[in-house]
């Protein structure tokens, strides 16, 4: 004979098992619905790709130490900074190719960012003129500065990866050609870029690979070759 309290306990356990079974079934259904909902929100169309445009690349050649202009078709974003990065990425992809005329490892991913800032005339004093501090002259000055930001010359700050600098061949000629081709390519595709500075992993670095000075500001227009000229 089964005692009464055991029957009662068995009934409670059976009831709890049934309740837990139902709850588990419902939780499973909910998880399934969430999964289906997530699949519905997944993109079903490819992201928009920037239209291909003609980009001018100034390519270095170690054999005769020259810079040659080449035109390539590649997708270019509208944003000037992204555009500059895309162009330099293509240039460094050419240098990483097996048949490159100027062999540098790393490729397009070696350019981390390109920042475009309003350029200051080299040698110009950063000190404001005496009249600018007065309230009456501040608004025209700000308007001029704003206009200068939109249409004036720009300084491009090119942030390279440390691995690119570490793997760059050492030598005056090869380092100079890399720097000049980057400057000239930027100026050819973004004519407002008149000055270029370089960072490596976000930090200033003395030289690219032991020779070419990376602490100075390069004038982009000086790097543009006339036609296959030597730097």
């Amino acid at each position: 004979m089964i005692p009464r309290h055991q029957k009662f306990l068995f009934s409670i356990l059976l009831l709890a098992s049934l309740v837990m079974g139902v709850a588990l079934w419902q939780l499973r259904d909910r998880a399934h619905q969430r999964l289906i909902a997530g699949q519905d929100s997944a993109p079903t169309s490819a992201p928009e790709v920037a239209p291909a445009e003609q980009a001018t690349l100034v390519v270095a050649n170690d054999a005769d130490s020259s810079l040659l202009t080449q035109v390539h078709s590649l997708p270019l974003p509208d944003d000037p900074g992204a555009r500059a990065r895309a162009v330099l990425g293509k240039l460094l992809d050419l240098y990483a190719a097996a048949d490159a005329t100027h062999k540098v490892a790393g490729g397009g991913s070696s350019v981390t960012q390109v920042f475009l800032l309003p350029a200051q005339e080299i040698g110009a004093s950063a000190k404001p003129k005496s009249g600018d501090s007065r309230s009456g002259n501040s608004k025209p000055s700000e308007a001029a500065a704003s206009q200068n930001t939109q249409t004036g010359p720009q300084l491009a700050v090119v942030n390279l990866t440390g691995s690119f600098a570490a793997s760059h061949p050492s030598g005056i000629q090869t380092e100079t050609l890399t720097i000049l081709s980057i400057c000239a390519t930027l100026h050819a595709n973004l004519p407002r870029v008149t000055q270029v500075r370089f960072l490596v992993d976000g930090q200033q670095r003395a030289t690219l690979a032991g020779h070419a000075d990376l602490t100075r500001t390069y004038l982009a227009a000086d790097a543009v070759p006339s036609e296959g000229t030597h730097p």
Partner: protein
Amino acid sequence: MPVRLAIRPFFAACNQTLRGGALALACVAFAAAGQPASAQPAPPPPSGPPARFVVVLDAAHGGDDSGGRLNSGQLEKVFTLAMTVRLRSLLSARGIQVVTTRDSDAAVEPNRRAEIANHAAAQACLSLHASESGSGIHLFASSLAPAQSARFPAWKTAQATFVTRSLALEGVLNSALLHAGMGVTLGRTTLAAVDSMTCPAVAVEIAPERGSNQAVTTELDDPDYQARVAGALAAALLEWRTEAHQP
């Protein structure tokens, strides 16, 4: 950014003298009169040209900075030092006073190299480099735009007042190297040490000789090639001395 000034060699020599104390008054008197002076006036060599002619040889890299690695496994710092020693011997044998920025495997900062060159009041400064890229000899003058002579030029662009003379020296070196049958590439570059030198300065980068198919025909470690390069550079500097002493 700290601004350093390229003190003229004369005033630098005065600084050394003033530290010594003994000749301070004489040095100040010379400075007031605007006449050249040197810390240790040396008598002119009896058979050489009357004026003092000094060449600075800068063996690039050194110490922790080994520069590039050449195909033979040799480091660029070792190669440049060996070439400096070879060239110094040739120049000294011809009565040219030579000042070197380093005589051993020591680390020398670019600013220190420029200081040594500027204190020497040299008529020619050569910075010797080596590379496996390219072909023949690469001659580089500073890419700074020529500027008017200034009493206290900015340290980082002190070479600007000498760029025209540096390009002339580059031309003389080019002629001598071509005459010796070597391929030469001329260019402009930015080297921190050269840009701070107050003398006609050229960076000489020695690369292997290559044939028309870009295959290496003469390696950098070829003693004959090194001798030919050193001989041509010495001949160029003798020519430069002759030009410098012409009225």
